[in-house]
Structures are given as structure tokens and as C-alpha cells.
């Protein structure tokens, strides 16, 4: 099975490799990006713009409008406001000024131009008509984030989450806002909600562990250790591919390093006393050190001296 990243890389190769503009490849790539929600703005605005402007009549009518919207947002991301404006004109011609989706895009263009007040007005108008329009609410929150007014953004996002409690992407955003203010305790709470929503995704356990570690203190180091370890149960360093027996590249080095750091810092906190550690924890430390060495030997042997000296620096036995 190919991963989505590999799938994207194939698309990217095809696009960059073809000499002339191949509209079907571009269409398929954009279709894939809409589905997978990867943010590849440069690519989308570069190739997508040619697609929707010069090859518009080749796209089928439903897909055409979605694609235009996608390219518009991507061009805002790449600071190409003129392109976005041209595309908005096409959309307004088709759907009229009253279209909510089009006016939201208009708001986003105003935001990029720095006309924040007019943008806020647009979103407020939409919300007066449709109070449950979550997209417009999110835009309002983003405006405060982009202004650097994180406290206000957090306040609005909390209101949003009282209505849309299961929107775990919103929880992620809230936690990243808290992290930016170095409010680790609040960020930790957000990740508890996220883990409840997505209990088998290893990455959230890793983040939870990292945040807990950042809080500091013996208890937190041990708690972080547990979460790092659990994330390695969900995403172990060695995964054998069943089809061809090949081994996938390990993607969870954070947790291996995390285990070592948690135990090391715990000992530092307790004046280097390792007697408080359980046997299982000592074994875990040894296992992580071995994993680290063998992963480095296999995938990046030139780094071996550096990694070995890291292991030496974080040794606890003497």
C-alpha cells in the first residue's frame, strides 16, 4: 500500500517532469489534494491557475467550481492576490453576490490585502443570516490570530468549541495557540480532548508527552515516559511490510528520544539517583538506546558518532 505522501510525490514528479502543460495530470493532482487536504499552495496556484483559466471548459461543471475555489485560496497563500481576484470575479459571475461561499472568499481576499475591518464586516453579515456557519466563525478567529491577538482568538475559539465540541481540528488549533503563549497546562487539556476523539493516532500521544515533559517535575517526566512508550506501541520502529517483507522507515524517533530524555531528566531531578526507577524503566532505557543506535546504523551511518555521544551524555548509571 502506498502512503498518501508517496502518492503526492508521484503526482509532483509527473507534473514537474512533463514538458508541456498536461491538463489531466494537473486536474488529477488537484483532485487528490482536495481529498487529502495537503497544503501545497505554490504548486496549486502555479499549475491550477493555468488549468482553470485556459482549460476551464474541459473540466466538468461540478468539479470546475470546486477547483476554482481551491486555486483561489492557494493563490492567497502564495501572495498572488491578483490571481485570486480574477478567480473571484468568475465565481461571482456564476453564483451572484449573495452566495455565502463566494462572499467568504471575498472576505479572505480582503484579509490578504490587509483590509481587516471590511473582512470582519463580511463575516459578521454572514453570521447574522446563518449563525451556525462554522467556516465564517473560524475566519473571525483566524483574523485575531493573524493580528497576534492570541488571547482574543482563544476566547472566540472557546466559544466555538462550546458549540462544535467534536471538531478536533479546532482543539488542535486551540492547543497550538496556548502553546504559543507557553500555557502548557491548557495545551495539555486540549490534547486530552483530542486523544479522546482519535485514540489510535500515535502522534497525539507524542505531542501530549512532549507538552507534559515541558511542564517539568518528576511526576510529569514519568507521565511523559508512559505516553512516549504508548505511542511506540501504536507506531513501533520496525514495521515489516507483509507484501514484500521490506521494512518501513521508522517515523517515530521523537518517542525513542523522548523516553531517553524523560528518564534522564527524572534522574537529574532526583540527584542522579537511579534506585527509584523500576526495572522495567531501566530496560526501556536500554531498549531505546539500542533502537537509536541500530536505526542510525541502518539509515544514516554518518551520524553515528553524534548519536553515540548523545547516548553517552544522557547515560544514567554513573
Amino acid at each position, binding site marked *: 500500500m502506498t502512503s498518501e505522501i508517496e502518492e503526492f510525490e508521484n503526482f509532483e514528479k509527473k507534473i514537474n517532469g512533463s514538458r508541456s502543460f498536461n491538463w489531466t495530470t494537473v486536474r488529477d493532482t488537484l483532485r487528490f489534494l482536495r481529498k487529502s487536504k495537503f497544503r501545497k499552495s505554490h504548486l496549486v496556484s502555479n499549475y491550477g491557475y493555468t488549468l482553470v483559466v485556459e482549460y476551464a471548459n474541459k473540466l466538468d461543471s461540478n468539479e470546475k467550481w470546486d477547483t476554482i475555489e481551491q486555486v483561489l485560496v492557494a493563490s492567497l497563500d502564495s501572495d498572488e492576490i491578483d490571481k485570486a481576484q480574477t478567480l473571484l470575479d468568475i465565481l461571482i459571475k456564476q453564483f451572484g453576490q449573495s452566495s455565502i461561499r463566494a462572499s467568504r472568499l471575498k472576505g479572505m481576499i480582503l484579509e490578504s490585502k490587509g483590509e481587516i475591518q471590511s473582512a470582519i464586516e463580511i463575516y459578521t453579515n454572514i453570521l447574522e443570516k446563518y449563525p451556525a456557519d462554522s467556516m465564517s466563525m473560524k475566519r473571525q478567529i483566524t483574523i485575531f490570530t493573524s493580528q*497576534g491577538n492570541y488571547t482574543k482568538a482563544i476566547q472566540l475559539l472557546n466559544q466555538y468549541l462550546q458549540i462544535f465540541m467534536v471538531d478536533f481540528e479546532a482543539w488542535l488549533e486551540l492547543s497550538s495557540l496556548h502553546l504559543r503563549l*507557553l500555557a502548557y497546562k491548557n495545551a495539555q487539556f486540549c490534547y486530552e480532548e483530542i486523544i479522546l476523539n482519535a485514540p489510535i493516532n500515535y502522534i497525539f500521544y507524542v505531542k501530549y508527552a*512532549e507538552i507534559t*515533559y515541558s511542564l517539568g517535575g518528576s511526576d510529569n517526566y514519568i507521565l*511523559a515516559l508512559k505516553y512516549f512508550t504508548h505511542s511506540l506501541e501504536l507506531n513501533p520502529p520496525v514495521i515489516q511490510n507483509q507484501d514484500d517483507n521490506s521494512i518501513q*522507515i521508522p517515523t517515530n*524517533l*521523537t518517542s525513542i528520544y523522548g523516553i531517553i530524555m524523560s528518564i534522564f531528566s527524572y534522574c537529574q531531578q532526583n540527584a542522579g539517583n537511579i534506585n527509584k526507577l523500576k526495572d522495567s524503566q531501566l530496560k526501556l532505557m536500554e531498549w531505546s538506546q539500542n533502537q537509536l543506535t541500530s536505526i542510525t546504523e541502518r539509515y544514516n551511518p554518518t551520524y553515528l558518532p553524534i548519536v553515540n555521544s548523545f547516548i553517552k*551524555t544522557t547515560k544514567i548509571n554513573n
Partner: protein
Amino acid sequence: MVVICNNLTISMNALVKIHLHSFKYTSSTINGIILGNISKNQNTKDDPTLKIQDIIPLFHTNTLSPMFEVAMIQIEEYCKVKNLDILGYYHANQNLTNELDPEPIAKKIADKLYNELHSMCFLMVTKIDADNYPIGLAAMERQSVEQWRSNKNIIGVDITENAFQVDDIKLIISQSLKDRLIFDFEDYLNDPTKDWLENKKVLIK
């Protein structure tokens, strides 16, 4: 006494790496460590010059203590091997609106380095525009605890190592961007084959 250096020069490779890192993750906060040498002037009253030779890109999402500590331990070892010193820290905010007002984590890290190094620099990545052409970096000056302000110093670019002119930087960045060859510490944690310390593939010949 700690000197916040007024005399700074940066090599093209370091400059390109910083901007490639920020262009690779346009929508995120990015940061990294600055390496180089300190050259003391003959006249001891003058400030020493910080010669930035290289940078090591670290993160592009959140910077949290455990992995930051891991990176720093390895960078210290790397510096010993390469005979370089840790000179400071660079940071790009997520937002363009407040690009000269470092996010809290940046101030915290800069202060930490300030307390540990003899001479250091703290650079914020900015837009490459008329005010700041073509460097796109602003040197920060420490006011008090966790307070930093841009000191409007000109940073010299050291082009002796290669034939490129400073004006070529935009071109070099856009060419190398195509392959997205720069990898930071966070990329390495997700894929151990990545060369985060040296980033040999982006070096200009």
C-alpha cells in the same frame, strides 16, 4: 559580560539555508541555531565580530523542551567536531504582521542562549523587501529579561566563498525551492535518513 554583537557577517550558505527553511514552511513558525566563529579585533576595545558560517534548522510546528534539548546536545557535539561555536538563534514568526516582535518561545530561547554564551546574536527572519533588501534578517537587541527589539543593524554578507552576488539570493532560493531539499530536526525525527545537521544538498557550490 555578554556582548550582543553589533558586528555581524553571514555566509551565503547560511543565509540561503535560513530562507529556504522559512520558504519550505511558509505557514508556520520556524527556528534554528546559528553557528560560526568569533573573531576578536586587534584593538580589544572594539566589539568582536561574529562570523556566521552555518545554521542548523530545528522546528516548524511547536518547539517543546524534550526535542529541543535533544537537538542542542547533538549540536554541541557537532560543533566540537566541526570546530564551530554556537553563536545564536534565528526565528520566523508565523504571522507577517508582527514579524519583529518575537513569539514568547523565541524570547525564552534567546534569553537562555544569552545567559550561556559570551557573545551572541538573535536574528528574526523578515520579508525581503525594500527596507531589508536583500538580507531579510533583522538583528535583535536585548532590552531586559525576555525583551528584545530590532536594532536596525546592517548585517554584512560574506561572499568570498563563492562567485554569487548578494542580489542573486532570490534566484538561488527559488531554484532550490523546487526540490524542497532542506530538512530540519523535526523532519529528521520523522525520517532518520534526513541530513538535518549539514543539509549538504542545499549548499551552493
